[in-house]
Every structure is written in structure tokens, then in C-alpha cells.
């Protein structure tokens, strides 16, 4: 019998794992080993994981009843709140709420229906983007139509190429009146779930989403129109009276000749991957001639007059509809992916329209984010739209998230229509009508 048989015969057979743990050396070794494994695995993906949110109440968030609310815009100049509706709400495309001296919305909204060609009665149009003119009583609306779009584009029903995506409403009239609608034809993609619309602070340019290369249905881009003194997109220089200019613009639109004079460069592989939310999920002007935008891959910075490198992309970890908020006085940009299952947001940075530094990801267990972030700079808070809740976090002196998140119940399965008024220091969120 070999010498070691005596020991090997009883070691494996007679000692159970629990018995092994009674030996101090083995217990110490195992605990050290598993501790090492746990620490090592956490090095692989440095992220900032936040604790579970606690319920809270925020008196600076005002719920506004607006069914199937998908997007919101507020005008401190005009004292108006506009909420855009999705396809599930057929009574209006835009609800316009007057705000009183304290910023409280009127209980009843002016409901606005947007035009579409007669041939598309079986299809639904819906709102993706809203923007108030910073000075003039004008509301710009980007609408879409649920006619399927793929690459290559399938045969489309009659009227699809006559569907105008951009509507300009005169708010000086009561009820508001449509001044004109443009942006039709093959250059504009349809059936998208997203598309940002924006005007810079001076009212000099209107940024529009969801354009494509004429020769390539999968090559997307976005662009901008200069705006004239009356807030009308300038396609051809003209000093004629407003009525004539509108007529000329509509004639050019009918001939599919209202392409924005400035468009992003072609970058369909990396920056403008085909997705369900359009070419520019959101657009936010920063400074006079720069915007931050978002696409399926993350953030973009477009500086149309930059002769060297006008378009810059920085990808994010999150995929889906990428929405964000730019801090007004710090470089911070807060970014979310609004697919209803996302449990994280990121903090990126920009300075003067240049994306900079490494984005940091914050994990929100059970976050289920559905909508954009908004920043409340005076309160030093960030609010993120979620499923039947808003998540609220404090920001420190350098606009980094700090403290524990709290959640506030809101009556909507997806808080998407979320906007902040600087004048009233108040956030508005579109909610379902209580039954």
C-alpha cells in the first residue's frame, strides 16, 4: 500500500466542505480568495452606482395633464407651455397652456391640429419637436407621419411626399394660426420616434432633424435654416413683403426645393446610424453657431461655420433614443437613453460647442428611464423622466450628481414631455388625465 493512500483515503471521503471551513488556514484562504475576486471584477468596469431611490416630494415640479405627451417646450417670453402629443391621442397634436404670473398652467389648453395631405387620412401624424421663437410670437413644430420608412424606401402611399414636417404657428392670433408648413419630399425621412427642433437664443437659425441624402436613404443628416426678421426660414434671399415671401416659400416647398442651406456632413456609418429616432434625437444650441445634438450612437457637436472640423461625435454607452440637457453655466451635459429599461445616465462635458473629457456613467438601480433629463440650475438639481416617476438628484458646486436619488410619482407610463422654465424656476411634466 503506498504511503499516502492512508491519508488520501480519508481526506476526500470523510471531510465535507463545511468541515473544511473549520480549519482556520483554509477559511482564511477562501475568504481572501473570494474577496480578491470581488475586488478584481469591480475594476473591469468603473461606474458610479447610486443607491436605490427613495420616495420624495418636489414642489418645483408641476404635472400638466396632457395625454400621450411626447415633448414639451416653454416660453418665458410669451408665458406659454406647449406639449406635443403622440399617435395615441387623436384630439390634438399640440396643447398650448397659458402660464399665469406664478407659472401655473391654465387648466384648459388650446388644442391645435396640424395639417396633413387628404390622401393620408388612414395614417396618423404626431409631434416630435417643438420650439418657441425667443422673441417673436411663433411656435415651430416638427411633425411626422406613421408611413413606414426603411432603406431602401418601400412604395409609399399617395400624399407621403406632400407631407410637410415643419409647421410655423402664429401665437399672436387666438386661437393660434398656421402661417405656413414646409419640409416635404424625399429628402425628409418619416415614421421616426424622435427628432429635435431648436432655435438659437438670438432667433437667427432654426435647426431641423431627419434629413437624408437624396441618393442614399440610409445616409442621414440634419441642418439649419437662417431665419428672417419675421421668423421665416430663408431659402432664397428676398426683401419682398411677408405675404409674398410666404407664397414663394410654399412654391419652393411644392417643388421640393426647401433643403436647409446648411447641412451636417455625410457620416452615415458612425454618427448617423439608421435607428427609430431619427438623425437628431435632440438639438440644443450652445452659443451663436454651435449645437449639441444626439443620435443613436451618442452625442454630436455641430459647428456649421467651422471650416476645419464642423462635426464631432462622442459615443455613449447607452443606446436607443439619446436625450440630454446642457447645463447653462457649467460644462456638464446629462445624457439618458430613453428606452424604458435604461438604468443609467451619463455626465459628459462641452465647452463652447466642443465635446470634451471622458463621460462618466451613473447607474440608477431600477431607474427605468423613459424621458429626457432637465437641469434646475437654481435648485442645483437634475430631474430624469422615468416610468410613472421622475428621479431627482442634487448637483454639487461643479454640477456633478451628489447625494441619494429620490423619486416622485407622476401619472404617466413614460415621462417624456419634461421641460424647465428659468423664469418660474419650475419644471413641467406632461401626465395622463386621471380617471
Amino acid at each position, binding site marked *: 500500500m503506498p504511503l499516502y493512500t492512508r491519508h488520501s483515503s480519508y481526506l476526500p471521503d470523510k*471531510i465535507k466542505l463545511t468541515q473544511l471551513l473549520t480549519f482556520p488556514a483554509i477559511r482564511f484562504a477562501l475568504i*481572501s480568495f473570494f474577496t480578491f475576486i470581488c475586488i478584481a471584477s469591480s475594476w473591469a468596469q468603473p461606474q458610479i452606482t447610486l443607491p436605490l431611490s427613495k420616495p420624495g416630494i418636489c414642489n418645483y415640479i408641476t404635472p400638466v395633464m396632457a395625454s400621450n405627451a411626447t415633448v414639451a417646450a416653454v416660453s418665458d417670453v410669451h408665458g406659454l407651455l406647449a406639449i406635443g402629443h403622440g399617435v395615441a391621442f387623436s384630439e390634438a397634436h399640440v396643447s398650448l397652456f397659458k402660464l399665469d404670473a406664478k407659472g401655473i398652467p391654465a387648466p384648459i389648453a388650446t388644442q391645435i391640429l396640424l395639417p396633413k395631405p387628404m390622401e393620408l387620412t388612414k395614417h396618423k401624424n404626431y409631434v416630435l419637436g417643438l420650439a418657441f421663437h425667443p422673441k417673436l410670437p411663433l411656435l415651430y413644430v416638427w411633425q411626422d407621419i406613421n408611413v413606414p420608412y426603411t432603406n431602401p424606401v418601400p412604395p409609399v402611399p399617395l400624399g407621403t411626399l406632400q407631407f410637410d414636417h415643419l409647421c410655423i404657428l402664429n401665437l399672436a392670433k387666438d386661437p393660434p394660426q398656421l402661417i405656413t408648413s414646409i419640409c416635404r419630399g424625399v429628402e425628409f425621412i418619416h415614421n421616426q420616434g424622435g427628432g429635435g427642433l431648436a432655435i438659437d437664443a438670438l432667433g437667427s437659425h432654426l435647426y431641423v432633424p431627419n434629413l437624408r441624402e437624396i441618393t442614399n436613404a440610409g445616409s442621414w443628416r440634419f441642418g439649419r435654416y437662417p431665419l428672417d426678421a419675421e421668423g421665416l426660414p430663408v431659402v432664397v434671399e428676398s426683401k419682398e413683403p411677408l405675404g409674398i415671401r410666404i407664397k414663394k416659400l410654399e412654391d419652393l416647398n411644392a417643388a421640393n426645393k426647401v433643403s436647409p442651406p446648411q447641412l451636417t456632413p455625410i457620416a452615415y456609418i458612425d454618427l448617423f446610424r439608421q435607428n427609430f429616432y431619427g438623425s437628431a434625437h435632440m438639438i440644443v444650441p450652445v452659443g451663436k453657431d454651435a449645437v449639441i445634438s444626439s443620435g443613436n450612437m451618442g452625442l454630436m457637436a455641430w459647428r456649421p461655420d467651422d471650416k476645419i472640423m464642423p*462635426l464631432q461625435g462622442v459615443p455613449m454607452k447607452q443606446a436607443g433614443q439619446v436625450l440630454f440637457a446642457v447645463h447653462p453655466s457649467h460644462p456638464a451635459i446629462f445624457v439618458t437613453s430613453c428606452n424604458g429599461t435604461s438604468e443609467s445616465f451619463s455626465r459628459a462635458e462641452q465647452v*463652447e460647442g466642443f465635446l470634451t473629457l*471622458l*463621460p462618466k456613467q451613473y447607474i440608477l438601480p431600477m431607474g427605468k428611464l423613459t424621458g429626457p433629463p432637465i437641469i434646475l440650475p437654481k435648485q442645483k438639481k437634475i430631474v430624469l423622466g422615468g416610468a410613472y416617476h421622475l428621479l431627482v438628484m442634487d448637483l454639487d458646486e461643479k454640477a456633478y450628481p451628489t447625494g441619494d436619488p429620490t423619486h416622485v410619482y407622476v401619472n404617466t407610463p413614460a415621462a417624456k414631455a419634461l421641460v424647465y422654465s428659468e423664469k418660474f424656476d419650475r419644471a413641467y411634466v406632461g401626465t395622463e388625465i386621471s380617471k
Partner: protein
Amino acid sequence: MSLRTQVISTFYGRLSCVFMSLVFASTVSARTITITAESCDEMACISALVPRLSWAMGGDNKINNAHGTLYFNSNTALFLRFPIKDLIPKGQRITKAELTIAPNYIAGIPEINVRRLLAEWGSGVCYQYRMTYPQKIEWSQPGARGNSSDRANKNSATFKFSKVGEQTADVTEDIELWYTGASPNRGWIFTMDINNWAYFLSPYSPQSGGSKTWKLQISFEPL
């Protein structure tokens, strides 16, 4: 006699315990960790061709994307900062540190130099400025090339690529300086002094695995 007593009382039982204790004790005392660019807490890529960009990974047709490929030539400088103090427990001695990078295309025999950055850099970092927020501060020489001011006056490592694939360099001294606090950790600057081309998977690649090809292996043991 209890089971424990039986095991310990035998020669081989004692030997087994001593051996296992030694094995696990050595695992706990001397350790080696491998981290990748995924663990970086700051990163930037600047270029003389686009003097205001923080993410100048290269590109064409007026588009620059931080994702995908880093097109490295003599106009480029890459900044990587690993949070060394967060990754290594206190009370350790750095025994060895190796940096590994791996181009997937080269033209000529590109030589990439790595130095410690000395000047503080931050928001808006670019070829022209080391930060543009809260105020614009220029490098002492554009592109952080100022020796002993923007960056250390000697190379910490040099990679000379005659073929594509991984190459490793010793960076123990830098890691020790950062870990002990003898020098503030402002990261490394990667530059190419003689113009050639080297393509790398971008160290910033949240949607793919490029960051995993930039590796730093550190061995340490208790003081």
C-alpha cells in the same frame, strides 16, 4: 480523536495545511492586476490639425468621431490617466508595471513616446489650451510639448513598431511616483516625434472593445 486533530496530527495533513496557507498567503500578499483603458478616469486626444478638439482621434470629410479608430501620427497626442491610487490598496510597494499597446496598422516604423504629463489639464483640453473652462489656459508649448512644464523632460517608455500587434514597456517608475504621491497623477501623453502612421482601436470605445487593447499590468506587495 476529532477529524481536525486527525488531519493536523498527521505529517501530510500538516504539510497540506502549510502548503495551502503559503499558496493563499502569497496570493494575498503579492498581487498583479491588469487594467485597461476602460478604467481610465480621464482621457483626451488632441491634434495640431484641429486645435480646439478634445477628441481628435482622426477622421476625414470634416467629421471626427471618438469611437472606432485612433489614427495616430506626429500631429496627434493621446492623454490617458489611470486612477492608480484608487486601484491599488494603501500600504503597497510597486514591484513592476507594464504598459501594453497594440496598433492594428502601421506605415513606416512608427515610434510612440510616453511621458508623464506635468501640467494640470481639464475641461476643453485641446492642442491650443490645457483647459478652456473655467478659463482658457494655454500649454507652455502647443500640444503639451513643453518639456519639464507641460510634460516630463524624458520618455517613460518608447514603443517602436516594426509590425502590428502588442508591445509592452516598463512603466514601474511612473506608477510608483503616482502611487506614492511623489508626482501628481496627470496621466500620460503619447506622442510620435517622427511622422509615421499607426492605427489603434480607440481607447474610448463604450460600444465596442477597443479600450481593452490598452493595458496596464501592475504588480505590488505589502510594504
